[in-house]
């Protein structure tokens, strides 16, 4: 009579050391009287031993172990190196991008400020027919406005003051035209 599957599982659990003590005792009693069960246990033991040879053959050679250890440690070092390199690269890229953006803004802002200042810079021009001195300036709509002065000193003084006021305003708010009337 063939041994039942449940009994085979029981014997396997016993060989794995997973059978509780009370069940072990019960099994020993049965093994003492059931020859087929005892023969099945012997067969399972021999299967186990055969598989142990298979598992034993899975053990690697010293050479394979050393090779794998070196591969792993090399890969770990490479990972560290790449991580550090990537970090430095990221920082450098970010710094370069910030510098480039800063330069870009600075350059465009500087050109704009220059052009406005040049466009709006007042200049003094003597007018021979009336004996007056005219200060010419350009407002923000592009029109040239001329303001007459009796003396060159007054005209120059006004022009200097206006230019200084424009610079101050540009420094504070960005470029803008100071209307001549604000000074009077």
């Amino acid at each position, binding site marked *: 009579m063939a041994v039942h*599957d449940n009994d*085979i*599982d029981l014997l*396997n*659990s016993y060989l*794995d*050391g*997973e059978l509780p003590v009370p069940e072990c005792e019960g099994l020993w009693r049965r093994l003492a009287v059931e020859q087929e069960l005892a023969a099945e246990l012997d067969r*399972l033991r021999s*299967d*186990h031993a*055969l*598989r*142990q*040879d*298979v*598992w*034993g*053959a*899975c*053990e*690697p*050679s010293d*050479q*394979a*172990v050393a*090779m*794998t*250890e070196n*591969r*792993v*440690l090399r*890969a*770990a070092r490479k*990972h*560290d190196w790449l991580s550090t390199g990537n970090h430095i690269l990221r920082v450098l890229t970010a710094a370069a991008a910030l510098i480039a953006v800063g330069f870009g803004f600075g350059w465009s802002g500087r050109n704009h400020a220059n052009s406005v200042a040049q466009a709006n810079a007042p200049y003094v021009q003597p007018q021979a027919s009336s004996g007056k001195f005219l200060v010419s300036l350009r407002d923000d709509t592009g029109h040239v406005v001329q303001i007459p002065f009796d003396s060159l000193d007054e005209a120059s003084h006004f022009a200097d003051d206006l230019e200084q006021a424009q610079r101050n305003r540009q420094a504070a708010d960005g470029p803008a035209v100071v209307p001549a009337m604000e000074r009077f």
Partner: protein
Amino acid sequence: MSNEDWKPPADASTAELFERAVRLHTRRLLAVARGIVGNRASPEDVVQQAFMNLYQHRDRYDWREPGGLLRRTVVNESLRILRQPKIAALPDDPGDGGKADSPSRQMLDSEMVVQVRRAIDRLPENFRAALVLCEYEKMSYAQIAETLGATIPQVKTWIHRGRRQLAEMLKEYAGQI
């Protein structure tokens, strides 16, 4: 003093502990990987990948007692590789992976052991992993369940069914000769 006797100093860095883990566990992990993947993948690749998976997040783990963690990672990596579609089988000969002069190696040359190895390779991967952990690693069903993320009854079923299937396959082989 062997590697296993060496206790890491309290202030050992993660890199030092990792290197110690590599030196201490690689042999056993290679055997576990080989037992599970058989000739369908390189156990060296499996073990290396498992170590690197852990190394990428090394600060999360305790490297003073990494045995269980490493075994679990190698088993998972082995199963992951086996579940990938279209795995080309490696040649039957394990090459440098086997002990060329060991008695075990000589046994492997015997036809019966070769047949058992082939039969094990034909088992479903969970059955095979459970068998390797049970019979080679001598782990309890509870530890195997934890390693494989399964329940104890599941593990018991896998192991018993695996053995039954092996017996059937070997009976067929015995009937042929």
